[in-house]
Every structure is written in C-alpha cells, then in structure tokens.
C-alpha cells in the first residue's frame, strides 16, 4: 500500500498527487499541494469500475467517494459521443464509402 495526497480543486474536482519517492510525502504535501490537502492510503481510493470515473470523485471528511450524479453525467456524455460516432460512420457508409475509406478518414 502506498500513500498519496488528495485535495479538492477550486472547481470541486478531486486532484490526486502521486509522490515519486524523491522526497518524503510530508515534504511533497507542503511543496506541491495546496492548503487542505491530506495524505491517505491509496487502498481507500475508489476501486474497480469507480476508479475509472476520476472526474466524479469527491472528497468529504477525508474520504474519497464517487458522486453518483457526476458519474451518471459522465456515462451519458460517453454514450452520446459513441452514438454520434456510430451515426457518423453509418452516414459515411450510406454515402458508399468502403470500410477502408472510412478508416482512412476517421481512423476507425
């Protein structure tokens, strides 16, 4: 288990500071992080699927959790982007472009 530093940014999002080991973590806390940053064990950070939604992490009373509303908004945005991509590819295909031509244009 390693220790890391977390704090809440001015926009409400969590920042996660990973020390390299060149300095003691207490020195990193003072040098690289703002007032209010705290040292925690990385084992208490959100794990599994929740770890993927870093932008939905919130820090409350020294505990990092995932905000369900923020996570839902991220998932909705990802789904919308995927749907737009599928729709665009479909329209390109309908124009008669081959898969190779579509890949040359879009990288997909």
């Amino acid at each position, binding site marked *: 288990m390693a220790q890391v530093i977390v704090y809440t940014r001015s926009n409400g999002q969590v920042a996660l500071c990973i020390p*390299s080991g060149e300095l003691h973590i207490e020195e990193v806390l003072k040098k690289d992080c703002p007032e209010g940053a705290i040292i925690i064990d990385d084992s208490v950070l959100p794990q599994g699927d929740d770890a993927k939604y870093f932008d939905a992490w919130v820090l409350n009373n020294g505990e990092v959790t995932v905000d369900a509303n923020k996570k839902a908004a991220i998932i909705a945005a990802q789904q919308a982007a995927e749907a737009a991509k599928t729709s665009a590819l479909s329209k390109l295909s309908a124009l008669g472009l081959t898969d190779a031509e579509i890949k040359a244009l879009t990288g997909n």
Partner: protein
Amino acid sequence: MAISQIPAAGLVSPITLSNASLTTANVTTLNAPSGPLATQNGMNGIAKAWVNFNGGSSPTINGSFNVSSVTYVSTGTYTINMTTALANANYVPVGSVWNNAFPSAILEINSGVTFTTTQFGVVTKNGTNNTTGNSGYVYVAVLGS
C-alpha cells in the same frame, strides 16, 4: 599537484578543484552524492528532469529524476512537480505517450497551467478525435537551464 600528474589508477583521496579549467576530462564515474549535480544536473544541454508514469485511473510513477510528484488533475490531465527548481521557466518539456486503446495518442502542454520553475502541466489525448483521455504510459523530460 597538477592535474597532469594525477595517477591513472589508485587515487583514493578526493580532490577539490576550485575555478579549475579542464580542456579534456575523461571521467569513468561522476559521483555526486549531494549538491546540484545529485538533484539537478548542473550542465546545460542535458535533461534537468524526467518522469515515466502510468496515466490511468490509478497513476503510478515508474521512474523519475528531479520530479517530486505527479498530480492527476482530471482525466488525461497531469501536473509535473519538480524536486529542485530550474534556473528559470524558459525550459522545454518534451515527451511521448502510449495508449493501446488509441490508434494514435498525443501529449500536449496544458496551456491552463502557467510554467513555473518547479511545475508545468501536460495533457494526453486520443489522436483520432483530439479528445482528452488517460494513457497507459506517459514519458516526459525537461530540457533547460
């Protein structure tokens, strides 16, 4: 003792050179346990800092020099914090990024973070659609004074 008279082998005592001018110095091992050479290379033209880190949802630093920490700010957005300050903020960060999920990946300087002598920001992107995303490995070095 003149430099030319130092024996090639068997020298055991450290030698302190003050304001010395060496035309050619062949050094097998340059050992600097402390001071600027140990924490920040004292020569121009070589990397003053570098870091290799995993850029995923659980960032880890795999190796570094003169980097005290990497801060994961948001998806694909990181701040590199240097241990010893550089002489000025006119340095050049260079690097690359690897992500097996992206057909191509891009490493950019984060324009939202002002360069200081100890800190700068980078962003990793999916090169296909130019959207910010985490990357498996991020490699950054700093050239400067």
